[in-house]
């Protein structure tokens, strides 16, 4: 009997899928008035391996679109924003992507990490759907390989170059030596070769590299090995968890290397996790910190107020999500201006590529896309943790 009930449950579910799935192909009709319609889909990681940074990032996007709607939206444009959690699993990302493309007919996608971005890179190119993610991998700058990928911040490589530049300019006493600490994934390895090349170019010596797993329990053997070379600086391309491990074990082993994290290692979450250990840790700031007084925060705060939230409820990842949505909307706006008909992915591509020196009010460095460059900026700031807070110590600047 038990199994019979179970059976009917299963059959019910199957019927449900077919009813739901056979039906709607996106046809773009049914909207209100003469507004042009456009749909943007988000692939978010909320419950996956990178959920701790992925969640505020996707919330930032959600909030921006809600803000946009609350202010009356954009004239003549009806933007639908969809968001789904793919939990950093590629098979889920693939499925959701198909759904966005075939069922929802999205014209652009806001992606998230290296995993989904890499996995969908070829498909978005052949389907002509612009894809803007928080994977700041230099590979994506190659427009032959990834013609539809965008990102709004400086690439990991550019970040690394800038850090090297800063080290060279600010190091006191002798030639600086640098170690690289990263993990064995596409994300971790992404800037390494570029950093090494640039170091050679400007004459900074890379004395060591260490691989530390994202889920490492300890990093002592790596740090001991690193200590053999006694580097002045350690550039960290990791997530918060692994960065915390590194900082803790460095503290344990009394290692006095100055660690500098690229953007994924940086943020309020690191301070939460590493506590006192994060004091004096430096890092790349790609976006504004919520408590900074910059013009771009005004509309942000306006929205937060309306939601009974304050800047204390958000963090830099949230800002990054907000910014990426803002840039995307800018591109869509441009696309809408250039066409009267349906806004296709190609239109959005052109719209994005028309963005020039977009002022984000200090929330991030100004963004420019062209048909040769889909990395919005090369500029970053460097920050340091002082009294449990990130403080910027430079202005937006690029290594060039």
């Amino acid at each position: 009997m038990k199994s019979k009930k179970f059976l009917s449950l299963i059959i019910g579910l199957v019927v449900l899928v077919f009813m739901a799935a056979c039906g709607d192909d996106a046809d773009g009709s049914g909207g209100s008035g003469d507004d042009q319609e456009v749909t943007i889909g988000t692939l978010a990681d909320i419950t996956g391996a990178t959920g701790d940074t992925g969640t505020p990032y996707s919330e930032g996007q959600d909030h921006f679109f809600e803000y946009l709607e609350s202010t009356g939206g954009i004239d003549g444009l009806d933007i639908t924003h969809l968001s789904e959690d793919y939990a950093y699993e590629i098979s889920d990302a693939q499925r959701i992507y198909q759904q966005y493309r075939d069922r929802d007919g999205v014209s652009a996608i806001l992606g998230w990490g290296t995993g989904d971005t890499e996995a969908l890179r070829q498909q978005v190119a052949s389907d002509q759907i612009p894809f803007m993610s928080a994977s700041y991998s230099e590979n994506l700058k190659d427009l032959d390989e990834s013609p539809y990928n965008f990102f709004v911040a400086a690439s990991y490589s550019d970040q690394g170059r800038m850090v090297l530049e800063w080290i060279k300019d600010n190091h006191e006493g002798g030639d600086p030596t640098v170690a690289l600490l990263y993990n064995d994934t596409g994300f971790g390895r992404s800037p390494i070769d570029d950093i090494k090349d640039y170091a050679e170019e400007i004459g900074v010596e890379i004395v060591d590299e260490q691989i530390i797993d994202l889920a490492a329990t300890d990093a002592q053997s790596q740090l001991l090995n690193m200590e053999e070379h006694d580097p002045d600086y350690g550039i960290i391309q990791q997530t918060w968890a692994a960065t915390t491990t590194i900082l803790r074990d460095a503290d344990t082993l009394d290692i006095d290397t100055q660690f500098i994290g690229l953007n994924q290692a940086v943020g309020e979450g690191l301070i939460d996790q590493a506590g006192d250990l994060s004091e004096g840790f430096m890092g790349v700031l790609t976006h504004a910190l919520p408590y900074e007084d910059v013009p771009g925060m005004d509309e942000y705060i306006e929205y937060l107020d309306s939601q009974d939230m304050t800047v204390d409820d958000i963090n830099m990842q949230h800002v990054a999500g907000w910014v990426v949505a803002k840039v995307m909307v800018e591109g869509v706006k441009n696309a809408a201006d250039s066409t009267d008909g349906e806004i296709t992915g190609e239109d959005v591509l052109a719209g994005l590529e028309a963005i020039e020196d977009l002022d984000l009010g200090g929330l991030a460095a100004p963004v420019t896309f062209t048909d040769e460059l889909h990395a919005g900026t090369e500029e970053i700031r460097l920050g340091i943790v002082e009294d449990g807070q990130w403080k910027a110590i430079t202005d937006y600047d690029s290594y060039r």
Partner: protein
Amino acid sequence: MKSILGKNLGNYRTSYRADMALLNSRNKKIGMVILLLVIFLLPMFASNYFIGLMTLCIISSIGAIGLNILTGFTGQISIGVGAFLGVGGYASAILTTSMGYSFWIALPLAGIITAIIGGLFGIPSLRLKGLYLAIATLAAQFVILFIIRRWVSLTNGTSGMVLQRPTIGDFALSSNTSYYYLSAIAFLLSAFYAINLVRSRTGRAFFAVRDRDMAAQIMGINLFKYKVMAFAISSFFIGIAGSLLAHYTMIVSPEFYEINVSIQYLAMILIGGLGSVFGSILGAFFITLLPVVLNIIVGSLSGILTDLSHILSAFEEFVFGAVIILFLIFEPGGLAHMWSNTVNYFKKWPFSY
């Protein structure tokens, strides 16, 4: 032989050949024709999105059939499918992208290469059983992925490799529908092969190895040969699935082939039914479509539970686990068993009690 109800209540055959034919009753023949028609005419009335989903389902089915040959039929547990899928995908990527072979050569070669590597990893199966073999394949999963990450000159390391959709002459199979047809043909061939295999001498030997390996030896079955053969044949299918998937997504990277993929495939054959080709297919569809269904359910509940969509994946994970456990406890025969129960019920209708 017709009964008074005009129903065919039994099948009578006049030769062993007829008895042993694959489609040995009229109903089966009709069913087969309908099935083929549905498969080939589907793109005419289903949405593009649906075709895309079906493509994922049938590619998974090929892999699931492969795994079932190893685990369901031969009783050798493998938690390393993910990595073998990767071997197939990478083989195809290397053959087409780096070496410039055509997809049509790369596809079978990818299967063969995966079969060889799978066979190699099958060698320990002579000494290892059950749990220990499972752990060995799990270790293989980690080691293979490590090699893929590190053999940068061959695999381009962690950044992955790019592939193209196959072409026939000048026609690229870039649309959902065309790729669906390609996968469907591969799928039908795989299913046909697998169904025949398991009812032939080799298949019987697999079953024998699974049920009682001692007695199998006494039947003259060389355990080692058949275990390795099961690994190889199984890996061939998985390699083909890997290659098809790689050309579908047009990219391979180590992140595609993590342990959770292995687990999903195991779930497919378990929920579908161990030792059943048909079950593998049902299971593959079930597991692939499960998140879609949950999505719909959560969507329709979103009025009541607004925040659920935010934790959809966690919910999915939860349901995935729950479904596996429920099946194991209440229907260990899987969907295939449910299906045959249902069919039997209707066959005997209205005399089912």
